[in-house]
């Protein structure tokens, strides 16, 4: 490609000024754009509403392509399943035997638990979901893990509500548009979820790695108590996520915690449920009818 000949505008003042103005606009615009980016990192919710319109445009097409092709993200899993079929079969058989033994133990515990609960007359927490939808698509070119949920404000979805699948936690609603909403997935680098180990309630923090895995860090740094296979559930600490939603399973230990894989894979999950955020007002609202009617005037 030869160097463009008419780059130097020659003697024409108009052309000179035009070229100069183009560069001034470009440099000013670039600096303003980067400042805007920094601002929108600081205040993600305020600027994310700008994006709602584009998502409303993209969503209908995503609905069509989803119904036509189904989810194409399972291709890599299908290939690797063929490759690892033999060793996986052995491992699964071993796991099945172990799980059967555990199931027997658990069923007795469950019965005991039911009796104890009946004894205490504990109120079952409200597990009803606010709304159900499905994940349409996601931002697959940027380093942020945002997915589009097929429902929006039309069914009462609002920012900050937790989203879960049948297998476990998916993420939380970042912004809600009129008919679609944006979900910040569990694996986003900026998403921190307070969790506890299901076995003994050891508190920890789950932090997304951005590549589908989670970093688990304990709150006390004395030693590293995690073992592969540990199940982590939400602890409910700090509000937002209701307690006891399955989050992840520990894959291997690391220097400062563990590497875990989310239990719910957003690429394969069929339907997701939007839950009420676990906030103090919600707790009070839920506790109010349970409280005995005191002698109030």
């Amino acid at each position, binding site marked *: *490609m*030869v*160097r*463009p000949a*008419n*780059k130097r505008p020659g003697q024409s003042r108009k052309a000179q000024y035009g070229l100069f103005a*183009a*560069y001034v*606009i*470009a*440099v000013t*615009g*670039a600096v*303003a*754009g*980067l400042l*805007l*980016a*920094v*601002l*929108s*990192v600081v205040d*993600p919710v305020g*600027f994310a509403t*700008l*994006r709602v*319109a*584009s*998502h409303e*445009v*993209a969503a209908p*097409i*995503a609905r069509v*392509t989803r119904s036509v*092709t*189904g*989810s*194409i*993200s399972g291709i890599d899993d299908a290939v690797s399943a063929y490759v690892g079929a033999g060793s996986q079969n052995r491992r699964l058989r071993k796991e099945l035997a172990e799980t059967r033994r555990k199931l027997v133990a658990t069923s007795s515990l469950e019965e005991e638990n039911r009796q104890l609960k009946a004894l205490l007359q504990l109120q079952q927490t409200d597990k009803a979901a606010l709304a159900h939808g499905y994940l349409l*698509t*996601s*931002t*697959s*070119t*940027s*380093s*942020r*893990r*945002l*997915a*589009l949920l097929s429902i929006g404000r039309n069914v009462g979805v609002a920012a900050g509500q937790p989203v879960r699948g049948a297998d476990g936690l998916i993420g939380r609603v970042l912004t809600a548009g009129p008919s679609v909403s944006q979900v910040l*997935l569990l*694996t986003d*680098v900026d998403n921190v979820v307070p969790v506890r180990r299901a076995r003994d309630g050891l508190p920890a923090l789950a932090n997304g*790695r*951005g*590549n*589908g895995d989670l970093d688990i860090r304990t709150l006390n740094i004395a030693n590293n108590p995690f073992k592969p296979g540990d199940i982590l559930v939400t602890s409910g600490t700090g509000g937002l996520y209701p307690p006891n939603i399955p989050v992840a399973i520990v894959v291997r230990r690391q220097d400062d915690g563990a590497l875990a894989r989310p239990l719910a894979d*957003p*690429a394969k999950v069929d339907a997701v449920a939007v839950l009420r955020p676990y906030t103090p007002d919600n707790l009070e609202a839920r506790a109010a009818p349970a409280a005995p009617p005191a002698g109030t005037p």
Partner: protein
Amino acid sequence: MNRAGPRLGEPASLWRMRIVPIASVMLASALPLMLPLVASSPVLPPMGLLFFLCWQLLRTEMWPVWIGLPLGLWDDLFSGAPIGTAIGLWTLASIAIHYFSQRIYWRGFFHDWGIAALLAAAVQAAAALIAHPHAPAGHLLGLVVPQIIVSALLVPLFLRLTGAFDNFRLKRR
């Protein structure tokens, strides 16, 4: 004069000449959000950015240097990056292309490939660093490395596609 049919040697319509490049970039930017793919890492190459760079490498004088402002805003709306990232970075990339086209007298295919790969890598890395200011930089760069490699390998294909679109754009009636 008979205006019904095309006349011999008449240039392509002005509309088509202007719309085709812009539409190809905008469509490529919006395409990833329209696919039913819930990705757990940045797997798709930044197609809008690749078309944007390839058009400028092919026809440096076609667009003013500030064209990255509107096209970057459009890409930001669909890419999920903080709004303003692509506005700034794409404009800086097009300034860099104008600079390269002045410095290198005869740009060949490998020059174009190198420039596009370098700029795509720089833009993706900078976008990741802007989007997550609190995360460790090494980990973020590791996250975008696969995408950068795929983008670099796809540059020749996108140069070809751009060339095909350019032929369509300038085809005489």
